[in-house]
């Protein structure tokens, strides 16, 4: 018995040593992102070339979004993350609350065609002083075209369970759902947030959601919607466009995206206040938001580059030369006709109240 305990202790100590040794070998930066196919696209387009160019190491971590961890690290003065991929609303909040470093935007490299960075990024995306945007992603809805020949084409079709019977997949959050409900109810994309700003507008959105409530399957993680469609659990579902594209491109699923009423948003890099390797992180940031890196990323996932100069360089899907990536992007002209940009300010102001109301509505 005693020997068993000694053995256990010895192996424990050996493991300890091994864990400790790893954490302290070589200089490296910690890059935090959302995991899955998205992180893979960043590894291929940003990490690998940067490592090759600089000889530095990258530790890649996955997280689930939100500011809880960054806030804990910064307020504790114990920051271990160097650069983090966040949504726009979180980037704004991190900046307002002093959780992120202010960045020197003039240090960003010019576009490959010589346009200064300030003009190269899509208008209005460089406004947050702490964050540099990398991609445009979008919440769309999709269906399985093998199961539905004359499929839906507009947002109103999504809410029409008589014309298109079957279950609907929706994200379990008021965000995007309320906007889509209003678009389906006939509100023009550019008026959605004005309407949502009034109590009657919110009531109207909830009333529209109420009309399909009994048919909804709620999802929470981005991997779920393609799964729901593949399993036939839902006839159509909202989803992130990249996830649906990957199911089509990598797994040959017969899914079709409906771009009408898409709600687009940005993902951005922020550097947490007091990041341990701020210099190297800034270097990585500049590299990864360059024209070529952003264009390369688009070969791996169908999220649009935020630099205009990247668009002409976007090629085809990795390993499938016939599959041109340009038309798959949320920003492609055909897809962008009736598009709505997520209004981070509206959500920063109203999410507490709307979340409570949404949860109360779900439970009722």
């Amino acid at each position, binding site marked *: 018995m005693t020997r068993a305990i000694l053995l256990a202790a010895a192996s424990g100590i050996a493991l300890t040593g091994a864990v400790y040794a790893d954490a302290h070998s070589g200089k490296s930066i910690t890059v935090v992102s959302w995991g899955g196919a998205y992180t893979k696209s960043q590894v291929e387009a940003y990490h690998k070339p940067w490592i090759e160019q600089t000889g530095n190491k990258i530790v890649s971590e996955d997280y689930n979004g939100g500011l*809880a961890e960054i806030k804990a690290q910064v307020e504790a003065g114990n920051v271990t993350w160097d650069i983090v991929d966040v949504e726009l609303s979180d980037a704004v909040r991190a900046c*307002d609350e002093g959780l992120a470093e202010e960045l020197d935007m003039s240090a960003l490299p010019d576009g490959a065609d010589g346009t200064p960075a300030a003009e190269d990024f899509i208008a209005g995306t460089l406004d947050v002083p702490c964050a540099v945007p990398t991609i445009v992603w979008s919440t769309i809805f999709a269906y399985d075209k093998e199961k539905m020949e004359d499929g839906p084409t507009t947002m109103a079709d999504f809410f029409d369970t008589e014309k298109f019977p079957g279950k609907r997949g929706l994200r379990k959050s008021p965000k995007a759902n309320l906007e889509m409900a209003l678009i389906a109810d006939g509100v023009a994309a550019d008026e959605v947030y004005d309407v949502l700003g009034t109590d009657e507008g919110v009531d109207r959105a909830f009333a529209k959601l109420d009309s399909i409530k009994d048919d909804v*399957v709620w999802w929470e993680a981005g991997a779920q919607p393609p799964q729901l469609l593949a399993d036939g659990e839902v006839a159509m579902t909202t989803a992130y466009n990249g996830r649906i594209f990957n199911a089509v491109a990598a797994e040959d699923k017969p899914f079709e995206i409906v771009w009408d009423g898409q709600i687009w948003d940005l993902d951005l890099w922020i550097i947490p206040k007091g990041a341990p390797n701020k210099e190297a992180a800034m270097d990585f940031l500049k590299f990864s938001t360059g024209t070529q890196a952003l264009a390369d990323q688009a070969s791996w996932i169908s999220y649009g580059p935020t630099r205009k100069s990247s668009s002409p360089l976007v090629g085809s899907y990795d390993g499938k030369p016939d599959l041109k990536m340009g038309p798959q992007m949320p920003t492609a002209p055909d897809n962008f006709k009736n598009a709505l940009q997520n209004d981070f300010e509206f959500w*920063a102001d109203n999410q507490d109240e709307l979340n409570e109301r949404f949860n109360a509505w779900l439970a009722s």
Partner: protein
Amino acid sequence: MTDASYQTAPLPGAPSDASGALLAADGTPLKQRLRQAMKVSRRRAFLLVAPLLVFILASFVVPIVALLLYQGAYNDTYEARMPASTALLQQWDGVSEPTEEMAAAMVADLAAARESKEIGKVASRVNQELSGTRSLMTKTARRAAKMEPPYLAALIDRDKDWADIETWGAMKLASTSLTPAFYANAIDMKYMPDGSFEDQEEQRQIYVSLFVRTLLVSGGVMIACIFLGFPVAYLIAHLPARKANLLIILVLLPFWTSLLVRTTAWIAMLQSQGVLNDMLVFLGVTSDDSRFSLIYNMTGTVVAMTHILLPFMILPIYSVMKAIPPSHVRAAKSLGATDWTAFWRVYFPATIPGIGAGGLLVFILAIGYYITPALVGGSDGQLISNAIAYHMQRSLNYSLAAALGGILLLGVLVLYWLYDRIVGIDNMKLG
């Protein structure tokens, strides 16, 4: 039996003083020596416990009390960064028109908070009291340094919401550091600027119904565990030792298996393409198109929680049943009782302590469940713990999380006290 009890009988020939009291070898009265010895051994026993007690107090009790009492009722986010306006807002009655003096203090505070880059924290705090004030504050703060008197007009000029008494009321609420507002919010009430309480708007009332749902689910799981646990415990208690041992191992196997493993297993069992639905389709109970939704809803939560907590019910009932002498039932039968009467009037009442112990334990554990509802609960199977985690990790409203946690903890402590009174924590057994 203590050391002292050995020495109470006077020994013949033992030394004693004039009054006849016994003396120890060094001449001190024996009673005094005994007291000293007792004191030493009491101190020794306490010293053995002290390290753990200090550890638990420091790493467990203090953090929880700090969170629940301090953060749940005290939030100085506003006061610490906006001192000038805080002083004036506290004097303001919350009903009359805001004064120019208040506006001047507000503008000065906003400018300073923007300068120190802390305006976001203040704005988030005020926004918890009134939706929409977040952008109002950040927007105003951007201009505050350039504003000129009269300040009230300048504020209203920047955004007409500043003319609203409600806006100033939200500021007053946020500037009150020691506040019942979060606890009020946790029971779907609203603390008003004039110090009164109102019901929360009906559409936003969520927490009371979550607490009620948590109680109902815990109660349902407890009852399910009693009905499933009792027969199994009875069977094991009445089998010969060898067979009983095998069955106990079968009960303990799930008990020792990771919670995540069992939750995963239930997803594989209950999902619409899962094992159970496949079997039902195969047996013709349902068709392939109309499979049952058994998971990502309340059913999934209750089934998985019952499975996870069932061993906690079986083991206490079993150990009580083991101690019931079989002669009691035999005596009842020999006096003419039927099988049922003997069971119901003689055997069953003797098992009640076990049912009580298991039931309370299951209820206490169920009430704080978080992981299982989060993974299989879907939209209607979420419990109060999930709301607490949401406010800790997503909305970052620690104070509301603390208030919700405080109410939950209070309920659990009452049950814990009951458990101690009825069962005694000394009698808690594992495996």
